[in-house]
């Protein structure tokens, strides 16, 4: 494979393109609403109407508006149909011949789409995720070529550093600095690992990217491999994501066949292999040292850092670990330059971030916005607020490690520092809207139970502390706790977050601490020794 051959694929794809393209989402969200049958109905309808020569029906990845699925789009800017059924799917085909569409449409001018900025999701819902040519036609693998033939590894690292890209897994560590550290550490071999163990409940950004645009991640990993001098990459994917695993394997095979991965990438001396490793249902494996243990076939228990994976990672070798979304940003940064990327977002938090907007909000789905966008814009304008005119009580970000942001902080910009200041974290991108009916103590109990179940048990504070905290929270919910119990809970929160071995334990108290900070009255009013307790003795929601 060389540049001319790559160009030829682009030209051929353009020439083969039929005048009209009907796209049907077959990512997990829409699949759960029967989109596979809709897709075949569409295909039959096109065949039957004799338009097969000018209309192409493709199954594509996520089109973002997951709650309204199955989604069917006609061309990129044509009408977008939602809640399509097998009954009304053929009417969409009929509209191409001047017929009347029976399916509901969703305005593309709606703030849900208009307020978004697409970098990572640019190709999602547009390209066919199962054909590498479709990705190449959008300019795919050009950045890898550019890196290999026009840049030195140090230039690549320098570009990533200048772009200001920060880790999208949640902590926001500067990506360029991490790459530089791994590159300078010596070892017989080095490894690139992509963390796709998206464990936060209510978060499916990574899954959507892997299902809809897998090559973008592979290209990002290969560029990283070139930059740090690694020849082997691993993608650690959750076992639950069967479709993503299938598509990744297919994508790796296709890229290998074309000489874009494997021995001699683009016929250069650079070799880069990528293997998929399938997780087996352990949230703690999202923690980097636990993830590496799991890749090496062991129990996914974390080990203390230092030493960091950058110096002592897989099999003791320097290892670069980044999130799916971090890698997905890399090809565009190389192609368009660091300055282009740095202009998006805020000076400290550059670029965009994909969020999964779910919960009590009108438009559930994937949202990509520049960092620094106010939370209110995301929840009220893009998300359309609470259904049926309800009030937003809080927005939960960062999953079990994050916190609940109350309504009064909705104007806060969404970036790493601002979220930290108001007691939450960016996290991997889950954003759950809770309305005024939500019981915040019960929410805290839910997350604590999650952490208790997912604790690996290696360190005592996390193993036994989460059990104690969950018990105390359950008692507060039941109305059988007193003020001393609440004090004990707060003490445990501090102790567990300060003494636990890994991020899971250190952040497990966060949802409790943040709800205590903003909704303390909900806790206090349920204590047996509080004056208002009697009114709520049935465990009813207090408002």
């Amino acid at each position: 494979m060389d540049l001319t051959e790559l160009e030829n694929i682009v030209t051929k794809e353009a020439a083969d393109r039929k005048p009209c393209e009907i796209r049907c989402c077959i990512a997990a969200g829409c699949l759960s609403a029967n989109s596979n049958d809709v897709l075949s109905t569409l295909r039959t309808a096109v065949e039957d109407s004799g338009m097969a020569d000018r209309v192409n029906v493709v199954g594509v990845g996520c089109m973002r508006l997951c709650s309204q699925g199955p989604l069917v789009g006609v061309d990129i800017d044509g009408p977008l149909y939602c809640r399509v059924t097998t009954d009304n799917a053929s009417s969409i085909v009929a509209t191409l011949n001047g017929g009347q569409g029976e399916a509901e449409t969703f305005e593309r001018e709606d703030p849900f789409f208009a307020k978004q900025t697409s970098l990572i999701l640019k190709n999602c819902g547009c390209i066919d995720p199962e054909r590498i040519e479709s990705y190449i036609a959008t300019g795919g693998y050009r950045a890898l070529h550019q890196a290999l033939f026009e840049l030195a590894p140090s230039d690549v690292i320098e570009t990533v550093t200048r772009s200001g890209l920060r880790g999208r897994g949640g902590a926001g560590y500067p990506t360029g600095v991490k790459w530089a550290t791994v590159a300078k550490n010596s070892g017989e071999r080095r490894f690139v690992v992509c963390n796709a163990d998206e464990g936060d409940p209510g978060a499916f950004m990574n899954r959507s990217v892997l299902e809809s645009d897998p090559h973008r991640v592979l290209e990002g990993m290969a560029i990283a491999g070139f930059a740090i001098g690694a020849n082997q990459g691993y993608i650690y994917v959750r076992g639950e994501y069967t479709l993503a695993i299938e598509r990744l394997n297919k994508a790796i095979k296709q890229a290998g066949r074309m000489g874009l991965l494997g021995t001699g990438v683009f016929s250069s001396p650079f070799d880069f292999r990528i293997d998929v490793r399938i997780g087996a249902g352990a949230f703690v494996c999202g923690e980097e040292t636990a993830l590496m243990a799991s890749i090496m076939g062991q129990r996914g228990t974390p080990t203390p850092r230092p030493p960091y994976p950058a110096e002592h990672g897989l099999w003791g070798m320097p290892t670069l670990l980044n999130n799916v979304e971090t890698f997905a940003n890399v090809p565009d940064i190389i192609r368009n330059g660091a300055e282009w990327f740095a202009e998006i977002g805020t000076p400290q938090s550059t670029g965009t971030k994909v969020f999964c907007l779910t919960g009590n909000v009108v438009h559930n789905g994937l949202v990509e916005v520049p960092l620094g966008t106010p939370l209110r814009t995301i929840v009220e304008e893009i998300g359309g607020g609470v259904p049926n005119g309800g009030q937003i009580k809080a927005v939960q970000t960062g999953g079990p490690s994050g916190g609940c942001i109350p309504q009064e902080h909705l104007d806060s910009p969404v970036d790493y520092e601002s979220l930290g200041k108001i007691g939450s974290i960016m996290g991997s991108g889950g954003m759950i809207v809770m309305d005024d009916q939500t019981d915040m103590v019960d929410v805290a109990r839910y997350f604590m139970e999650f952490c208790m179940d997912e604790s690996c048990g290696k360190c005592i504070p996390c193993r036994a502390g989460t059990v104690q905290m969950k018990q105390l929270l359950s008692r507060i919910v039941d109305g059988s706790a007193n003020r001393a119990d609440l004090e004990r809970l707060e003490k445990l929160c501090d102790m567990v977050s300060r003494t636990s071995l890994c991020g899971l334990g250190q952040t497990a108290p966060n949802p409790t601490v943040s709800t205590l900070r903003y909704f303390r009255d909900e806790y206090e009013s349920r204590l047996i020794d509080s004056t208002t307790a009697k009114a709520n003795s049935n465990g009813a929601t207090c408002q």
Partner: protein
Amino acid sequence: MVNQQTSKQTAGHPSGDKRFKLLEVAMKRHQYRHDALIEVLHKAQELFGYLEDDLLYFVSKRLKLPPSRVYGVATFYHFFTLKPKGRHSCVVCTGTACFVKGADELLECVRDEIGISPGETTGDGGVSLLTARCIGACGNAPVVVYDEEIVGHQTNEDIRSQVKGWTIGSDGA
């Protein structure tokens, strides 16, 4: 528990079960590397449905790993199950979005209907009730997976009738 005959054979299993041969192929592809343990267990579960002691012994022998380590890894990950599953499975997603939209009530309904708690299988081996930590179909919450098929926007009625259908089906059979 350890079968002495196994050690004399180079491949397969004394039972002659063909699935062991397929498992052997998978292990060979990984060059019997210790770090392939999880991949091998995935394959074993895919072939046998669940991981019984005899199967785990087979894996430990072939990969030359201590049996306790194989058992330790198999029990660490929730995806692996050491007990047989029911003919039908009902997986209720308990992710945050589903929690906010009432996944707890769905579980309650199944418990009322067939009297089992998450992680259990009905006495006749008909239905297994499981929970999942977010399937990632949050837009359609609450979500339930019936026999590998993801279905969104579930109500108490939906889940009750589905599960009831299975139990009646197995009675008739």
